[in-house]
C-alpha cells in the first residue's frame, strides 16, 4: 500500500519544495520506491531543485489528460536509486488538476509499486493546494518560526482534517510539523518564535526542526537536494526527520544555541 504524504504550509516560500526534495530523496535512499509530484502547476520549482528540468518531456497534466502515460512522464532521479519525479506543467493552469484525474494517477502509481508518494503543494489554500492534500494519508506541515506562518499552518491543519477525503470518510489525516529556517540565535533574542511556542500553538507532533542554513540555497542552485550534503546541519536535520517519518526514535537537534552544553548535562544526569 502506498503512503501518500502532502508537504503543505498555507504560506508561501517557507520551504515546501526544499522539504519535498529532501524528504523524498531521504526515503528513497533508505530503499523505498518513492515518487515526488509537483502540484505547483505553472511554476515548476521541484525539477530545478532536483536538477532534472532539462529532462522534462511530459508532465503531470499531460498524464491526467491522457496525452502521455506515467512511464513517459516519470523522471528517474540520478542520485537516489529508488526516486522518481513527476514534474508540473509550466504552461497549464491549476484547473487542469481534477479530483478524478489526480486519483487515477495516484492509483496507477500505487499499482506500480510505489511505497511513498510525496506531493509538493503550492502555497495558499486554493485549488492547487487542495488537490495536493485531498488524497493525503499524512501531511507534513512546513512552518517558519513566525506568527503569520504558524497561523497559516494552523489553518491548513483545519482544512486538512475537515475537507480531505479521509476527513470526509470520518478518518484523520496523520499530521506532523516541520519547523524550517530555524535560527536559535534569533529565537534567543526573541526575534522568532521558539520550538515550544510553535508546538504549543499548533498542538501537533514535531517531525523535525531544520536550521536556517546557507547550504540550502547553495544546494538548490546546484540542483542537489540538501539531504545529500551530510556535512551541513540542514542536511542532517532532514535525515533525522526522514528517520522519524519511518518510525525511528531520533533525538531532536539544532534547536538551541548551546546545544552541546545541554546534551552533556543530560548525559551526566542519566548516567
Amino acid at each position: 500500500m502506498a503512503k501518500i504524504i502532502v508537504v503543505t504550509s498555507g504560506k508561501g516560500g517557507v520551504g515546501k519544495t526544499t522539504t519535498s526534495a529532501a524528504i523524498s530523496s531521504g526515503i528513497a535512499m533508505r530503499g523505498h520506491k518513492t515518487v515526488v509530484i509537483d502540484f505547483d502547476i505553472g511554476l515548476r520549482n521541484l525539477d530545478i531543485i532536483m536538477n532534472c528540468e532539462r529532462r522534462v518531456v511530459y508532465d503531470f497534466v499531460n498524464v491526467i489528460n491522457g496525452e502521455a502515460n506515467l512511464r513517459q512522464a516519470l523522471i528517474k532521479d540520478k542520485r537516489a536509486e529508488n526516486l522518481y519525479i513527476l514534474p508540473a506543467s509550466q504552461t497549464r493552469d491549476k484547473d487542469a488538476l481534477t479530483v478524478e484525474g489526480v486519483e487515477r494517477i495516484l492509483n496507477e502509481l500505487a499499482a506500480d509499486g510505489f511505497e511513498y508518494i510525496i506531493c509538493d503543494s503550492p502555497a495558499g489554500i486554493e485549488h492547487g493546494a487542495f488537490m495536493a492534500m485531498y488524497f493525503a494519508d499524512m501531511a507534513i506541515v512546513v512552518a517558519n518560526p513566525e506568527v503569520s506562518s504558524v497561523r497559516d499552518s494552523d489553518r491548513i491543519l483545519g482544512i486538512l482534517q475537515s475537507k480531505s477525503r479521509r476527513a470526509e470518510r470520518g478518518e484523520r489525516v496523520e499530521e506532523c510539523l516541520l519547523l524550517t529556517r530555524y535560527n536559535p540565535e534569533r529565537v534567543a533574542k526573541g526575534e522568532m518564535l521558539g520550538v515550544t511556542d510553535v508546538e504549543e500553538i499548533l498542538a501537533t507532533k514535531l517531525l523535525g526542526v531544520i536550521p536556517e542554513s546557507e547550504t540550502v540555497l547553495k544546494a538548490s542552485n546546484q540542483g542537489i537536494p540538501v539531504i545529500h550534503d551530510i556535512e551541513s546541519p540542514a542536511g542532517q536535520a532532514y535525515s533525522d526527520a526522514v528517520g522519524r517519518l519511518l518510525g525511528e526514535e531520533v533525538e531532536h537537534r539544532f534547536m538551541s544555541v548551546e546545544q552541546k552544553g545541554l546534551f552533556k548535562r543530560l548525559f551526566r544526569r542519566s548516567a
Partner: protein
Amino acid sequence: MPLLKSLSKKPSASKSAFRLKGGLFPLTLLEISHYERADFEQQLTNKAAEAPIFFNQTPVVLSFEEFDGDISTLPLGELVNICKAQGLLPVALRNSNTELQTQAKHIDLAIMPVGRVKPSKDVTEAEPETAPPENTSVAEKNEDTDEPNAARSAEARSEFSHSPTKTVTTPIRSGQQVYAPGGDLIIMASVSAGAEVLADGNIHIYGALRGRALAGVRGDTSARIFCQSLEAELVSIAGNFKVDEDLRKDHWKSAVQASLDEHTLCITPLV
C-alpha cells in the same frame, strides 16, 4: 443568527417597555400513551410521591405521539387539572389533532409544532431526586438550526446523552467554526486564533482559548465560558462581549470562567 446583535451596552434614550429576546429552556414532555381518569390520576400521584422536587410547578408539554386510541374524544381539561393538582403545569400540546387543538385554545394551551424529539428516558426514573428535565428545547424545533461548517470529523454526539451537548476532541483550527445548537459545547483541546466556537449553552474548553468564543448565542444570559488559558480574541455571552485588549488586562493566560453580571461580562479565575 443573532450573535452580536444585542450588543448595545447602553439602552437607547427613550426606554422601551419591553424587549423580545430568544430564550431556550428545557421542557419536559409528558408522553401520554393512554388515558383513563382514575388510572391516570393514580399513576401520576405515585410518580409525584417518588420525585416531589420535580413535581413543583414544573412546566410540561403534553405529547400524544404514542397515544393508542382516539385522542379526539380526550377530556383535555380534566387531564390538565389532574396534572396541575400534582404540581405539573401543562403549557403546550404536541402531536395532537384539530379537535384537541380546539380544546387547547379554550384552556389556553399553546400548540407546539410536530418535530424531532431526542430519544427520551423517563426523567423521574433516571434521577428521582434532582430530576433533570428532558431537554426538549423549544428553539431547536422551531427554528432551523443551521449548523456552520463544523469540524465534522471531530465531533462526537452521544445518542444517549440527556442534553444536546456537543463534544469535540481535536483542536479547533484557524478558520474553523463549531456551533452547538441547543446545548453546551465541550472542547477537549485548544481553540486557535482565527477560530470561532459558539453554543446556545455553555462552552467548556480544556485547553487554551485563543480565538473567539460566544456562549448563549440565542440570548441565554446564564451561559458561561470556561477555559484553561485565556488568550482570546473575543469572549461573548448572550451578545455581551469583550475583545482582546480588554481581556489582556486581567487573568490573561490563566484559567478563567466568563459569566454575565447584569449586562457586564465578568472574567473570574478558576481556582
